[in-house]
């Protein structure tokens, strides 16, 4: 194990809230900041991490061959060309789900922990076997959610399960925040979500069209140092994970002018 390797599960319960995008961007950002990082796709049924990282054409072996000992770990790891500090361990064939056990994931994770500072596990959606396998390998977790009732409810279920499995610390990333809707009180406020889920907030990511553009290209936003709001948010999350003290963004400060001032006034808690 490298002196203090950290194995972090990135999970949400609900699908489509941004787990894989966060894993890809965080992987790049941590690696760029000097930490050797591996991202492990634990979503064997519907793998996509390779696609978001633009590594889909370079996969030869997967976690499956590593477990079966038909290849060495370093043969299966796909190194990122522009960010050599980052590697991907691709998910195997969906048929792996039939025999994969929590112990297998633990075995993979402990191999990776010997070589990398950060092991980021991209968890499948849901709370069934895929989740149980992934959680077995995790020491800490990042729960990602959006300010919507269904996503928050599912996040709550996942947090309960993480607690049961003794995963600690568990931190929260709030994704797809729309400052204008929050100002109009037509979207759950940041405090509403953190109060309900009772987790420390690791980061806040604004809704950002550039995320889709970067997905199209297979180049995570953090790769090119773009100034887009989401890119900034992801790299701040990486910095906070590494122990830097970076203040959280305040969505209400994202807008200025008289209208925004009135909206802020209307949010005043009166009782």
């Amino acid at each position, binding site marked *: 194990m490298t002196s203090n390797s950290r194995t972090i599960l990135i999970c949400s319960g609900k699908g489509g809230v941004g787990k894989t995008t966060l894993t890809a961007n965080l992987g790049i950002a941590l690696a760029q900041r000097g930490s050797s990082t591996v991202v492990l796709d634990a979503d064997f049924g519907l793998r996509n991490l390779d696609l978001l990282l633009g590594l889909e054409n370079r996969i030869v072996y997967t976690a499956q061959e590593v477990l079966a000992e038909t290849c060495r770990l370093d043969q299966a790891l796909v190194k990122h060309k522009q960010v050599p500090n980052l590697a991907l361990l691709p998910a195997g064939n969906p048929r792996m789900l039939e025999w994969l056990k929590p112990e297998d994931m633990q075995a993979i994770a402990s191999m990776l922990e010997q070589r990398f500072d950060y092991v980021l596990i991209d968890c499948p959606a849901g709370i069934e076997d895929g989740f149980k396998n992934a959680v077995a390998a995790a020491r800490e977790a990042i729960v990602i959610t959006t300010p919507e009732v269904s996503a928050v409810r599912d996040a709550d279920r996942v947090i*309960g399960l993480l607690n049961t499995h003794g995963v600690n610390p568990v931190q929260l990333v709030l994704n797809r925040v729309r400052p204008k809707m929050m100002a109009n*009180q037509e979207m759950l406020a940041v405090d509403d979500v953190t109060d*309900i889920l009772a987790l420390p907030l690791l980061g806040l990511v604004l809704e950002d069209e550039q995320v889709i553009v970067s997905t199209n290209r297979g180049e995570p936003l953090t790769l090119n140092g773009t100034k887009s709001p989401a890119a900034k948010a992801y790299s701040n999350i990486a910095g906070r994970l590494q122990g830097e003290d970076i203040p959280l963004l305040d969505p209400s400060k994202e807008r200025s002018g008289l209208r925004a001032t009135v909206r802020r006034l209307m*949010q005043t808690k*009166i009782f």
Partner: protein
Amino acid sequence: MTLRDLVDKLLGRQPASASTARDRLQLVLAHDRSDLSPELLDQMRREIFEVVAKYVDIDLEEGDVSLETEDRVTALVANLPFRRPVASPSPKSD
């Protein structure tokens, strides 16, 4: 309640959806976390009323047993007001 909620109330408008979302979430999470279905909770509520009513005279109309949740701790909160004693005519003692 925020200032906006008050203004909405005064104007008779529908409240902003964020507060509705918050209230609905808190209720559904209290049930999710306790693994109690609304039917079971209702049955428990009736049984609690029966037990308490054996000992004290409670006002069933005003009584309430519900789940509340804060900081990931869910509690069963019972609020069972005693019925106000009806002033019984006291025997004259002269």
